[in-house]
């Protein structure tokens, strides 16, 4: 498939936003359970505004995936109507919902609104309740985003539960790395920075495992369609001689990355190093030395790596329609 930068930025940016939200919520929950030092409302409010910025960045990138950016205002609302059948439609519902909940979570923390909802006599119960919905929203958005790809059975590289697992784990890992940087910049207790950082490392390692599984799966994939089933001729030797046009078409542009196999392979190794290896090392160093700049570098490396990862994710998928477009 042709990797579109709009979708690459959309999926990676909202992944960071959702992961950051999950990190902030877990810090609040742990803080209320007295497992971690409790933080001020402004810590969570600013953090969720940061998460909201990532989500908005993703939304901005998504605008460029539409035929015309103006469709965002004139037609995109229709995209919420087919949620019964379309995962893309479900994502179009889950994304604003997640943004709204992140915004509410930030507002409740900012103003410090308190209600003793659960009778625990601890502050932050109202924002925790909003946060629970936010967690459900974040998970729903991860599932919707990944299912857009996993639900297309023709793209066999994507059509696997591993796609959903990877979107969730990689997004959460980058979000926790971002939370580590944020907590370190805010100068909060080292326990919290270590909590975020420890989970960032754990999730990144988990991501390496799950992503490697999908790489291994895709390396030995058997394609269901062949040129024989495509044209319905039973012969071992079938060769296309003409695709019906000379200057290319949508079919030759949209379904191929247009790069060499060696380029594709190099991108794979680049993302494996940038997403997993370097961030884990930098996170470990930054946490042990309590060095904010190293943590920031870890996040930036991981994010750039995720752009490569997402490019590879799209480029690796081989569409059966390419069987009809093998030669001019």
């Amino acid at each position, binding site marked *: 498939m042709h990797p579109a930068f709009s979708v690459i930025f959309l999926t990676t940016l909202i992944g960071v936003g959702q992961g950051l939200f999950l990190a902030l919520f877990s810090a609040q929950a742990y803080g209320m359970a007295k497992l971690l030092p409790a933080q001020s409302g402004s810590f969570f409010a600013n953090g969720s505004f940061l998460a909201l910025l990532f989500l908005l960045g993703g939304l901005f990138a998504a605008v460029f995936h*539409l035929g015309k950016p103006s469709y965002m205002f004139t*037609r995109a609302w*229709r995209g919420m109507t087919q949620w019964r059948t379309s995962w893309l439609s479900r994502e179009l519902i889950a994304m604003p919902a997640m943004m709204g909940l992140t915004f509410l979570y930030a507002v409740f923390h900012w103003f410090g609104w308190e209600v003793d909802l659960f009778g625990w006599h601890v502050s932050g119960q109202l924002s925790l309740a909003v946060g629970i919905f936010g967690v459900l929203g974040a998970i729903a958005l991860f599932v919707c985003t990944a299912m857009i790809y996993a639900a297309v059975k023709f793209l066999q590289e994507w059509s696997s539960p591993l796609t959903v697992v990877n979107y969730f784990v990689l997004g959460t890992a980058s979000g926790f790395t971002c939370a580590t940087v944020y907590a370190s910049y805010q100068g909060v207790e080292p326990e919290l920075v270590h909590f975020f950082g420890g989970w960032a490392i754990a999730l990144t390692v988990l991501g390496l495992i799950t992503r490697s599984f999908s790489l291994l799966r895709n390396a030995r994939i058997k394609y269901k369609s062949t040129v024989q089933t495509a044209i319905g001729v039973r012969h071992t030797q079938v060769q296309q001689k003409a695709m*019906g046009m000379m200057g290319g078409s949508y079919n030759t542009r949209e379904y191929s990355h247009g790069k060499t196999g060696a380029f594709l392979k190099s991108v794979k190794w680049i993302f494996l190093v940038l997403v997993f290896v370097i961030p884990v090392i930098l996170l470990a160093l930054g946490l042990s030395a309590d060095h904010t700049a190293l943590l920031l570098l870890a996040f930036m490396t991981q994010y750039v790596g995720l752009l490569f990862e997402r490019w590879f994710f799209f480029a690796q998928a081989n569409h059966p329609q390419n069987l009809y477009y093998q030669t001019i």
Partner: protein
Amino acid sequence: MTQLALVIDLNVCVGCHACVTSCKQWNTSSEKAGPLFDDRPYGEDPTGTFFNRVQTYEIGCFPNTETLHFPKSCLHCEDAPCVPVCPTGASHKRAEDGIVLVDYDKCIGCKYCSWACPYGAREFDEYQKVMKKCTLCVDRIYDEKLPESERKPACVLACPTSARLFGDVHDPESQVSVAIREQGGYQLMPEWGTKPANHYLPRRKTRMHIHEDELVRTDNPLKKEDIRHGTSDDVTLDDWLM
């Protein structure tokens, strides 16, 4: 329930592209589907939006090769995978006649439907920024201003060898159903379960089966070759009769 479709006879198609050009001509000037834009139509690397393409395949190894001309357009699948994925409902399958259409006023150009089509039947229009596909000339086949014989898709009318048949594949007695049933009509990529409505008729070899006996005895009234068996010295029934 009606399911309109095309049946394409690969035994007859000569790869002339008349269906491609007539489709483009009809649909680019149609109010419903057009215009279908082109870039550099007379320059280097011309490219544009088409609903129909004729491709050419070579089957076998030289010298035992065969050329197959293969027209490909939307197959109007009965279980069309491009329809449920559309987030806006722009991509739809008509209940009354089974034609899969795109509502250009609802399409947001996200291209998701084209990912969900294993046949590459949909093409994105780079100027109108919406997804386009074969409409089975829906603006022609119901047009009562046209004589009844012309209420067919443009490609069917244009085909000089009548390789394209048009009709209801759910009516067992229709021309298309009979052709599918009696001439081995098949669907493309059956492994995906999309149930394409369009069918293809395979190439057929016409071979004469002539028995030696037909040449030298039965079909030769003059017995010109004058074949006689060797005679026997023994007394046979013939000696008594003749």
